[in-house]
């Protein structure tokens, strides 16, 4: 089991690194430059807003999502007992998952400053070169998520094994 997980981890890590490299190449070499912000738009886009922060529906619902996820991590780490932390974390995780479609639909439900890129009547919203960069970037982020997930599973199983061994050695000392 441990060897199988190690091999999966190594394979996903390599795939993730290759996809991240491809995504960066497509972003910086293939995708077109934005008119106002130039090359820097490829890493941070905000000129449509004109400000760094505004209480707009999509931004606000995203902030709520971040706070919920931060709360989830804090609950897991600082709750009085691990069981209590797991329960509070699970509730916050479910609420955060419910917030995700709200973030996505925020631009349709509450018309703010955010441009509608995907949606009805937008058959091909991305410029040539952008679709490839977008698709490969999505895959790269997905595989990076898998890398982190497998690493956490592996760490947890190792910690459990250590606890078992220490418990056993304590019993027979």
């Amino acid at each position, binding site marked *: 089991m441990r060897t199988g997980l190690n091999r999966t981890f190594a394979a996903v890590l390599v795939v993730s690194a290759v996809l991240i490299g491809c995504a960066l190449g497509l972003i910086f070499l293939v995708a077109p430059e934005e008119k*106002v*912000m*130039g090359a*820097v738009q490829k*890493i*941070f886009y905000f000129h449509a807003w004109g400000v760094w922060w505004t209480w707009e529906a999509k931004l606000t619902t995203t902030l709520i999502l971040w706070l919920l996820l931060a709360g989830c991590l804090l609950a897991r780490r600082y709750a009085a007992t691990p069981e209590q932390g797991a329960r509070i974390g699970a509730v916050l995780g479910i609420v955060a998952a419910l917030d995700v479609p709200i973030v996505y639909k925020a631009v349709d439900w509450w018309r703010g400053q955010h441009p509608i890129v995907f949606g009805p009547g937008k058959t091909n919203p991305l410029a040539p070169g952008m679709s490839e960069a977008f698709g490969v970037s999505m895959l790269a982020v997905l595989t990076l998520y898998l*890398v*982190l997930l497998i*690493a956490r599973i*592996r*760490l947890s199983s*190792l*910690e459990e*094994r*250590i606890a078992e*061994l*220490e418990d*056993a*050695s304590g019993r027979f000392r």
Partner: protein
Amino acid sequence: MKSYAFLFWGYLVVWIGLVGYLASLGRRMTALARRIERLENRREA
């Protein structure tokens, strides 16, 4: 045009942070695997 070059440094910091985090996870996994090996050897001895 206003310069946003500082954002590239921020971007670099994010990448360095990610690589550092992955390296720390790898180091932790190796350390735990070694500890398990020691505990298993001690149990067998």
